[in-house]
């Protein structure tokens, strides 16, 4: 039988300015004193499961892949184009599956298309996805059609094949918002570690998307066509890591969950893998194997980033300290958030 909390215990907890150690890691901020109601959360964690970080990862991968595909198309790198187009379609499919799994029923997705709401990042995102998806899909379909023997391409198929290029271009232009909006989706909540990250999170996410897509390019495209993928991977990784560093600095106490528990492990893995992948990408040169390894590292790193940030946010919502302390500090500084004309 576990002991249930009594307010006193909470008070005792508040009473000490002890440093908290978790996972053998010394946190940067000494534990602040705060009061809560039996240690219960104030805000509620999002009722989301692995679907959502997976969705964010695959959305980013799809977006990056579409851009790589379009670039490959324009610069006549057919493998890069093909890989990009197919990867974006597969990723897109996975995003839809995860989304619908999260919602429970397909009709619930369509439900969102009944209305367009600018204040709802989810609504905006749905429309962004709806704008991007068909074109990315069409581009991928044309790619598949093109793989058919010449004689079989007739009628609609021929049309699809013909539309491949313009569709791919539109997909590439509509792709970046797909990678970026998920950061707003998270940040536009009262979840402390998400909301406090709102300035840098979009950069972390697009960086992560670029790194993942670039990594995929490294992994699946022969070195002779993989140059842009490599550059994208490295650029993405650098952006992600720099933005993440900046983000943590600006988050104050709400950065703590990024270092603790599952989230901490994921974020550490993400950093290591991303750095490794980036260095590998830079050094891999013409080595196919090195490309594959670095690509896989970058992709996994991106997965870890999304899951890490997702978990950190969930943890920050479950511990009242991340809600109370920043707000209490604001008040104690005499700077409550108030509307001023």
């Amino acid at each position, binding site marked *: 039988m576990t002991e249930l909390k*009594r307010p006193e215990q909470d008070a005792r907890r508040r009473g000490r300015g002890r440093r908290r150690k978790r996972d053998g890691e010394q946190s940067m901020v000494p534990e602040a004193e705060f009061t809560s109601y039996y240690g219960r959360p104030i805000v509620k964690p999002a009722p989301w499961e692995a679907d959502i970080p997976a969705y964010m990862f695959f959305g980013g991968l799809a977006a990056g892949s579409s851009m790589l595909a379009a670039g490959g198309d324009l610069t006549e790198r057919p493998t890069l184009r093909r890989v990009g187009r197919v990867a974006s379609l597969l990723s897109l499919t996975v995003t839809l599956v995860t989304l619908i799994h999260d919602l429970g029923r397909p009709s619930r997705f369509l439900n969102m298309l009944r209305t367009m709401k600018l204040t709802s990042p989810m609504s905006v995102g749905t429309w962004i996805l709806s704008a991007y998806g068909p074109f990315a899909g069409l581009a991928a379909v044309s790619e598949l059609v093109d793989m058919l023997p010449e004689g079989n391409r007739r009628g609609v198929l021929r049309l699809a094949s013909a539309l491949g290029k313009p569709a791919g271009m539109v997909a590439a232009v509509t792709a970046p918002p797909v990678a970026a909006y998920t950061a707003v989706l998270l940040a536009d909540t009262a979840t402390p570690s998400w909301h406090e990250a709102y300035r840098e999170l979009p950069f972390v996410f697009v960086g992560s998307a670029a790194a993942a897509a670039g990594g995929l390019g490294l992994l699946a495209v022969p070195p002779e066509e993989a140059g842009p993928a490599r550059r994208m991977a490295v650029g993405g990784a650098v952006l992600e890591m720099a933005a993440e560093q900046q983000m943590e600095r600006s988050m104050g106490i709400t950065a703590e969950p990024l270092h603790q528990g599952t989230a901490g492990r994921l974020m550490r893995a993400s950093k290591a893998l991303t750095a490794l992948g980036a260095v590998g990408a830079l050094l891999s040169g013409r080595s196919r194997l090195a490309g594959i390894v670095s690509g896989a590292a970058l992709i996994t790193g991106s997965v870890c980033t999304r899951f890490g940030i997702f978990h950190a946010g969930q943890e920050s919502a479950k511990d009242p300290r991340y809600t109370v302390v920043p707000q209490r500090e604001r008040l104690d500084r005499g700077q409550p958030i108030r509307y001023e004309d």
Partner: protein
Amino acid sequence: MAEAHPVGFQWVMEAKKRGAKVIHVDPRFTRTSAMAHTHVPIRVGTDIAFLGGIVNYVLSGELDFREYLLAYTNAATIVSEDYVDAEEFDGLFSGFDPDTRTYDTRSWQYAQQEHTGNSEAGTHQQRETASSMQHETHGAQMPGFPPRDETLQHPNCVYQILKRHFARYTPEMVERICGVSQEAFLEVCHAWTENSGRDRTTALVYSVGWTQHSVGVQYIRTGAILQLLLGNMGRPGGGIMALRGHASIQGSTDIPTLYNLLPGYLPMPHATDHPDLQSWVDKVRQPGAKGFWSNADAFAISLLKSYWGDAATAENDYCFDYIPKLTGDHGTYRTVLDMIDGKVKGYFLLGQNPAVGSAHGRAQRLGMANLDWLVVRDLFEIESASFWKNSPEVETGEIVPEECATEVFLLPAASHVEKEGTFTQTQRMLQWREKALDPRGDCRSELWFFYHLGRLLRERLAGSTEERDRPLLDLAWDYPVHDSGPASGEWAEPSAEAVLMEINGYEVATRRPLSSFNEMKADGSTVGGCWIYTGVFADGVNQAARRKPGSEQSWVAPEWGWAWPANRRILYNRASADPDGKPWSERKAYVWWDEEAGQWTGHDVPDFEKTKPPSYRAPEGAEGVKAIEGVDPFIMQGDGKGALYVPQGLIDGPLPTHYEPVESPFRNALYGQQANPTRKQYSRDDNPLNPSPPSSEEAVAVFPYIFTTSRLTEHHTAGGMSRYLQYLSELQPEMFVEVSPELAAERGLVNGGWCHVVTARSAVEGRVLVTDRLRPLRVEGRVVHQVWLPYHWGTGGMVTGDSTNDLFGITLDPNVLIQESKVGTCDVRPGRRPTGPALREYVEGYVERAQANDGAPVVTADADAVRASQAVADRGEQA
């Protein structure tokens, strides 16, 4: 009060908003304490010491309302010279017989009236029949005018006796006994006295924290003494009021479900003492005595007429013989023990769940398991209907479902919203309520059940020539029925309004409803089911159904519902005016004498003969109502005075005395007499008591803690109306035990974990709630831990748990036979209790260690004192 009467408590909050100071005296910190200015934690079971301390504070500081006291109370009355106070006999009053543990009360009487007291045998019978309860509206009966000393100097006047009796109840003593700091105690004293007098009044509101004790009646008595001393009775904003429990529990005392009363507080006749109507009626009205009971014959005969109608005639004593008679103790606890002993065959249980709600749950269930048949009418299948298949005794093997021979008839009852009728609430106010919806399925009202049960029995017996069937066959059993409702035709619901009309009473010849009990006749020409309710149907109008908003009438709101007697809202309100009939103060004006009109008038219906002036003095030899003088507000009392000292009617003494609870870890600090010597005790092996001093210290230490029980807002009593409902069950889903952090540390209890509480009767488990709301007290220089348990759980419903009442044995107050279920001693242990037969072994182990079956002595006063007390009675006998 916030816990158990939250809706009523809004008025306390309202008063607080207007500046009233709220003090809460309670063993633990409750929702009420949370709203109070001061919470005074007190050791449970010590309120007489506490209140006695206040009495002493008032008397020694002469803070009483002297004018009121002199005119309206018996302060000046002189008591018999034979009387000896408990102060002198080590806690016993004069006249005690240690064998029967009863008093010969002749020495308690007023001077020159010694003969009106009871012999010790008489008192014994009184206890058996809980006859003090019959005195609810009676008061003492007395002929003539006992001597008075208006200067209050006579050593044997009530005032001086009172002073001597309470002199040792000092603040230091209160601190020692109750564990209340002197400072807190004095705060209460100041508040009470400062808010009493000509311009201000204090109301005393109590409930079952004061009643469920082996000295429960004397608790209330102490409160009443204070209210009289301070002039708070019969005046607006004053009084002493019980916050009653179940809806219409007041109604079920007025028209009683009690074994020793008939409607309107007419005592149930006794088989040997009341062989005929005359002897019974005379017992009530005491020919030659003063007061309003002199008309009891009219009330009694009208009642008999309402039962047996035309069959009741002057020739056959109005069928007086048909009334069942008392032969002794037929109280609920005695009856349960009789069930265990196989003396009771069948039992009706309506709206009660004794398997959970009554003390000594195990005895209750074993008793019911030994019946031939049991009828339970309830809203749910409560524990009292399912005991044979899922009680703790089934677990221990004491009841075997396959062998339990009790045939249980569980009949579905309609709830209060599914039937019409009245509720009588705590202010004696009847409020009519309409049926909101038809009951579902076979659910029916109680009225339906009894009407049709009676109808069927009469049909079965029709044509019988057996004498014993006459009472049933001669009943006036013709009630109009509704043509709509859950059933119709032969099985229709009877009209509750017709029943109310019969209760009100009417003239037989014209069927004209009576407007007042003064219209009742002793010649059989009137019918009336309950004389105090007469007027509720005045002018043929259901007065209880009146709903005039408060904003459209005076602040007394006489046109909302109807209060007995005669729609009077404050009893004895003559006392709200001074002896000359003028209001004590403008602020507190309520009822006064209008000189010009030559009558009493005011905001309420005056509780006095309308035209009897303040100056009226009784002529020599006057009897009955005529003997009540113009300055005698307490008109149901034999002397018209408020009784500070009670010469008649109480079994345990004319003055409240602090006795320890029957189970207590402490020696009585005031007297050698430990606990109430006259308490009703059933000493049997299945009713063991935890030892108390003067038993050996080791034995007492087996149960070192004190526990008390009460209610949660979220649940209702035995749980039949809350544990079966989702919305309430989820709010308090589990049986729990509240302990202080100190006790938790001492016994290794963990918040949210399990613990169990053990007494000589059983062990009961619950989750631990460690809380600062319970505090250890320093009593007699020792620290005492108090534990608190709610008593709402049982084996049925959506949330189940152990029943707290399994912890209690059966010990009763001698006056009204209420059980001591607010205090006991116990042990508390971490973890869950043993289950199955091991539970009994575990408890037996405790019983053995504590030698709980050995029957500790009840009379513990000094032997010389006992002898001397008895000698007083013997002297009386010889005289």
